[in-house]
């Protein structure tokens, strides 16, 4: 068996890990050999739901004060949580 990584990004509508999911992205290092995401949209209602499905938190976004003059400007989705899941796949899997 070989170890491969799956990565899940969740973006939330608040800074807490149990804030609601508003965006997501999935990258599958097992090339389909590992488990898939739930079919619901979003796949997990929040980060805690993902943890309860076996995802490990790798990183959460820092909380940064707005720069003077930029207090009312939005840019990227602010609250990003990155998870990983390590999966054993048969040798020879890409």
């Amino acid at each position: 068996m070989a170890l491969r990584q799956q990565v899940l990004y969740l973006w939330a509508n608040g800074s807490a890990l149990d804030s609601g999911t508003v965006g997501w992205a999935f990258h599958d290092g097992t090339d389909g050999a590992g488990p898939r995401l739930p079919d619901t949209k979003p796949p997990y209602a929040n980060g805690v739901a993902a943890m309860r499905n076996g995802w490990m938190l790798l990183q959460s976004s820092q909380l940064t004060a707005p720069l003077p003059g930029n207090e009312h400007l939005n840019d990227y989705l602010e609250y990003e949580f990155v998870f990983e899941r390590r999966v054993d796949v048969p040798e020879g899997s890409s």
Partner: protein
Amino acid sequence: MAEFVANGFIRFEAIVPTDVNERGIDEMRRLELERFGTDGLKPPHTGTPLDECYPLPSAIGEYLRLPQIRGIIESFVGVNPAFDHDFTHHLQPHSTYTQPLHVDAITDSPDTTFDVQLFWYPHDVAPGEGGTRFVPGSHLRRVRSSGLERYQHIAGEKQFSGPAGTVVVFHHGLWHAGQPNPGDGDRWMHKVRLNPTVAQVRLWNTDDLAELQNPPSDHVFARMLPDSVAQILRTMHPWMSVTDYRNEQVQRAKLWRYLTGDVTYDVDHYLTRLEGRAALVGS
């Protein structure tokens, strides 16, 4: 117009006649083949006044000269805007190409002026069959185009579907992406970007503006008019946090000030509160 400010787009269902749509597809095919060749059909030069673009006979020229299309264009960017560029977006049947989410051009300037991009769909687009993906309400955010590629899915995003001849007008900052075409037919779309050459102040039919324009005191935590521009500018999209939402209200109010020439306009007191306090400094 208030919906455009809140959402970043507005759609006009089947507004282009069938015969123009059919001839438009033929001309899009020619433009795709000949655009970069030595001879044949070429797009206008960037900066060309719209009136001089695609002189007749031309199906694209007919489309751009339809009174209803000119009315839309004039409402956003004035009577004779400058042609920025256009492109024919073509997907072969069963194309799996997925364009990442992006905004066009570069990170925006901090002022409230804007270009429009008209997306013309000359044939029916069924749900899920290759229509443009876009994120309502994303148009006023300051991002780098490549930074959006990370977002595979955003709550509340839409994918265009609709009847032939539908035109969707985008604020130039709206996040969008081309999608795969699982259908059996070719998928065509013409996109043109237009730059205003006049201040975009009250260019549309404003007959009802005096009735709908709320005073700056209109405040969700105090008193509100039941039917006003502010009610539309309070639109909260499913992907927004509370902070996002309030900041968007500030940006929308600033854009509405520009569009109406009303420098005191506000939604929910956010700008008025800060401006009132700032005026006290040094007084």
